[in-house]
């Protein structure tokens, strides 16, 4: 019989806003949402570098890094990130990204492809609800079969 949530150790996530980006509101809401969904959230906040994400992930034994980028520079800010994760020993860590990740309104298929190319496992268009990422995390981390209950968020 699978253990009940609360008795199990929570899965850790690192969240933050990458680069020279200061958009703080969505980040505060994501922290709330992922926490309520039952994750241990390490929020490194705005203006965070790749290095800060990776260090926080190592320290907290996180299984996923959730990058937010609202201001349009994500492509530049994220280049080489997957490589650096591997170099740091985070071989299998999940990399998600969402927000307004490119400059301007662009064809989504192309944007998604570019970020997949950069090594992201999941790429989300503007205004995606946190619940979508929560659902995907549960799937990608096979949480159901490991007995994690669905925390749910709004």
């Amino acid at each position, binding site marked *: 019989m699978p253990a009940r949530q609360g008795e199990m150790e929570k899965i850790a996530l690192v969240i933050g806003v990458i680069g*020279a980006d*200061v958009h703080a509101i969505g980040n505060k809401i994501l922290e*709330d949402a992922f926490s309520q969904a039952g994750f241990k959230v390490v929020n490194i906040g705005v203006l965070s570098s790749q290095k800060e994400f990776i260090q926080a992930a190592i320290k907290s034994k996180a299984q996923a890094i959730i990058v937010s980028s609202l201001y*349009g520079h994500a492509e530049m800010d994220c280049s080489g990130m997957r490589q650096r994760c591997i170099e740091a020993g985070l071989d299998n860590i999940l990399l998600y990204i969402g927000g307004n990740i*490119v*400059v301007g*309104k662009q064809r989504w298929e192309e944007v998604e492809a570019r970020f997949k190319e950069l090594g992201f496992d999941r790429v989300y268009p503007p205004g995606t609800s946190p619940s979508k990422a929560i659902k995907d995390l549960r799937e990608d981390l096979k949480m159901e079969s490991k007995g994690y209950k669905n925390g749910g968020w709004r």
Partner: protein
Amino acid sequence: MKRAVHNKRLEQKIFKEIRKEVLNSWPTGRQVNLKEAINFHHHLPEGKVSPKKLAKGKEKGDIFVQPRAGVALREEQITLLRSFEKAGADFLPTTIDSYTRQNRYEEAELGILESKKLGRSMLNGYPAVNEGVWKCREIIESTKVPVEIRHGTPDARLLAEITMAAGFTDFEGGGISYNIPYSKNISLEESISNWQYVDRLVGWYQENGAIINRESFGPLTGTLVPPSISHSVSIIEALLAAEQGVKSVTLGYGQCGNLVQDVAAIRSLTSLAEEFLSDFGYRNILITTAFHQWMGGFPKNEARASGVISWGAVAGSLAKANKIISKTVHEALGVPTKEANISGIKITKQIVNMLKDQEFFSREALEEEIRIIKEETRCILKKVIELGKGDIAIGTILAFKEGFVDIPFAPNRFNVGKVLPVRDNNGAVRLLNPGNLPFTKEILNFHRIKIEERAKRENRRASLQMVIDDIYAIGKGMLVGRPRTGESYED
């Protein structure tokens, strides 16, 4: 170089010392030649000089419209601005990219190169520092109305030097409004001191006959900021600027969404600023207001977004702001195209023009709201002045430390961040958690009662969930984030 911060005019000697450092911090700094710049300013036609246009407009009761826009490449930036001018923009912007705002000029350089290579703007604004004086000046030379630098830069000294030398006559920002919402680790000592430099530079131009306008960034985090908090910040920045010799200030304010509150906010802003400027003995300062259309999350759907833009234009017009900063229908998606930006200008112009001859407000409700905003702002500012023993710079720093000034949702760690705003039943922004704001019992009670009214109507407790609902509300087509009503809303 660290200095103790006081609200005292920067001595010329120290200013010059710092100046050397500033101009040497990036190669283009060496292009700045003040004599040449002053001469250029002297020859600007009147219509291109922001404070002159603002003064005239204020007298005539004009409501000006200004978009926001910045792209990586100069030629494109110029094309953009020209098309805005044609579309009726009264003031033009040059919005600076985020790397430059953080003084990360190497990354900005990379952004320029990438943009050229990929043929699309990889930067979310115009990298004015990397461009330097002469390239920036091309912008001034290709347009016919005043152009303002809009950014979000805690340390904007080099940016100010370069763009003012290039002939820009309007410069947004301030030691608080361009730090607390725009940085994480920068102290107010540092940013205020850096902005004293910027203000002193403007003062210096002023003394040499070249007037430049300074504008506070009223909207702050753009998200449910109550008027008294942003008014306090704007007025502090006006006082700081005045001390350095600035003679033309625009006070910014970001639409909250409730019409009475927004009209009351603009009407109280000028009179409060006059009150405090004259209390401190600053005279002959031109005070104008800028009304920002809704600065929080937008609906993705373009029709809905134009509804939001229009509502901003209505509120700004009825409030009789001197300038309305327009948004675009792409707001929720990404940096707008030229077309989207032009449509924002035109929607706004249409409404401004249709409303300019109309007077419409509920005297009682408005007066009550004005009274509240004024009283709150005075509570805050008096506390600041008291703490600083009359020195507004010192007082500000201490007040932020205690949370007597506190900006909701700001990322900066020198902001206490206890204040939690929420809408009342009519959509006015009130305080769910007043944090340490130095308000009277009566005011705190007023907020409580207003919020209770809503809680009752919605049959739930006022809580963080209510705040979150409000943050999403306009993006979802509402003003007040009511508990989910089942209205099936489709984008």
